[in-house]
């Protein structure tokens, strides 16, 4: 069968990808700019007899995910910035109990109520854990509708493989924009394997009783649990790092940007190249684990970096950690819901090239 291209909003494509990934339960609370995703799940999950609940709050939603995930089912929630803040305790619990789950943040401008336009001001929250304690979640940053669908679909598998939440960090533009998308093969949840670590069906699974929990009041034991988790994190860093490099080979200045700002930077790159400037783009796809080494290697080769974000400067800390003083790192950011234009970014690169 030829692959059919469908025109979809990012929010809808994420929803459809989740449905196709065999998501059995969606729990969400309305918030702009991700409402189409919740509405999509309402239509398509209910139509398939799967679970859709408009939860009473984001806090309830993430804890419903916790419950569903405990049974080994593929479960998801989505929200936007303020709502994702409310989920931080729950995410910390998912990590502490080693449960898989998919969490979507279609980010908007903050802080506080802020605005409803696209922003990348939740990078710290996503990559450093806005919740308490030592933990990380896998963070994937799509640059468009196709990648939003692909990464969402894949996220469920990653979450199960690594027994942890996977966060898709999109923004209002990715969510609201329409592009053509080829959707992945649907998986019927009934064909997904039951999990040996999950609760329910103990007889069928011929196993002792399972206990899903994150508590341990004995410091040595809790420390051991943490260290084991961090060993897994180390393994993830080896296996999962993903990024895209565009024309970095001969570049003097390399844009570092993810998601929407990477799209814009790519446009700026084209303008620059058209004018003969040697500009490249480094786009992290996994924000955690972050491609530190890859950037370090570029730094060693004498490149300079211009970090482009829709924030006051958050990923730039990872870029600076990556290059570790080996190269200058500059910053260009817009915020408040403003998206930088490719012309602005180009102008900034031009200014730097004179330095």
């Amino acid at each position, binding site marked *: 069968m030829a692959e059919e*291209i469908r*025109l979809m909003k990012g929010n809808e494509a994420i929803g459809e990808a989740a449905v196709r990934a065999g998501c059995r339960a969606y729990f969400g609370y309305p918030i702009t700019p991700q409402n189409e995703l919740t509405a999509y799940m309402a239509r398509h999950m209910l139509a398939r007899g799967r679970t859709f609940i408009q939860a009473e709050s984001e806090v309830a939603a993430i804890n419903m995910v916790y419950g569903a995930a405990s049974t080994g089912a593929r479960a998801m929630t989505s929200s936007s910035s303020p709502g994702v803040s409310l989920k931080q305790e729950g995410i910390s619990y998912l990590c502490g109990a080693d449960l898989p789950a998919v969490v979507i943040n279609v980010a908007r401008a903050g802080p506080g109520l802020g*605005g*409803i*336009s696209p922003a990348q001001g939740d990078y710290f929250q996503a990559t450093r854990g806005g919740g308490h304690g030592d933990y990380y979640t896998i963070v994937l940053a799509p640059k*468009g509708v196709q990648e939003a669908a692909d990464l969402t679909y894949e996220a469920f598998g990653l979450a199960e493989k690594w027994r942890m939440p996977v966060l898709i960090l999109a923004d209002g*533009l990715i969510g*609201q*924009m*329409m*592009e*053509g998308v080829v959707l992945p093969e649907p998986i019927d949840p009934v064909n997904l394997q039951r999990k040996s670590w999950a609760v329910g069906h103990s007889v069928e699974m011929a196993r002792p009783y399972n206990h899903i929990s994150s508590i341990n009041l004995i410091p040595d034991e809790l420390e051991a649990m943490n260290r084991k988790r961090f060993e897994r994190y180390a393994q993830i860093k080896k296996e999962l790092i993903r990024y895209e490099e565009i024309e970095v080979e001969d570049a003097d200045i390399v844009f570092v940007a993810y998601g929407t700002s990477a*799209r*814009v930077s*790519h*446009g*700026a*790159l*084209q303008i620059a190249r058209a004018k003969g400037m040697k500009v490249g783009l480094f786009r992290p796809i996994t924000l955690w684990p972050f491609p530190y080494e890859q950037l370090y290697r570029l730094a060693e080769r004498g490149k300079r970096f211009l970090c482009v974000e829709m924030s006051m400067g958050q990923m730039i800390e990872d870029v600076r950690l990556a290059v570790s003083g080996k190269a200058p790192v500059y910053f260009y950011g817009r915020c408040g819901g403003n*998206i930088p*234009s*490719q*012309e602005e970014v180009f102008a900034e690169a031009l200014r730097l090239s004179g330095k």
Partner: protein
Amino acid sequence: MTEKTFMTGFGGQGIISMGQLWVYCAMKEGLKVTFFPFYGAEKRGGIARASVIVSDSEITSPIVTVADSVVIMNQDSVEIGEKVCKEGGIICVNSSLVKKDPARPDARIYHIPCNEIALKLGNVRVANMIMMGALSKVTGAVKLQDLDTILPSYFSSNKRSLIEINIAAVEEGKKVVA
């Protein structure tokens, strides 16, 4: 070929559906597309804008800041529309509502009396389709030839009856600028 279009008007003029149908058709014609709407925060029934790009290669920034073509559906939108148009670009104005031309002597400005033609066709709401037809003609970027297969699934069932008048409107639009 890349055609970046900036569409602007006020809520209710069908800016969003114009942009969506434009990229639907483009996709059917084998192009890559992006469509990004923006609703003004200022007030309900306020501004409506869309960044619309069709291209035969990968599209980078989906935000149209320097437009190949600009669609201006009402007078209030002239200010933003004239700013965004590239040097020597195309500007299509809905001359039914826009009485003062964009101050862009370098641009190719087309005047399409969308509301009037639409009223003649019997429904002022197809003004946007007239404009889309004109845009197709003047840019040549999207042929709009698949509208008849697209519209039935685009419209909800209770609006199916409007398919014909919409297609007629597009054809009218093409003719005005022919």
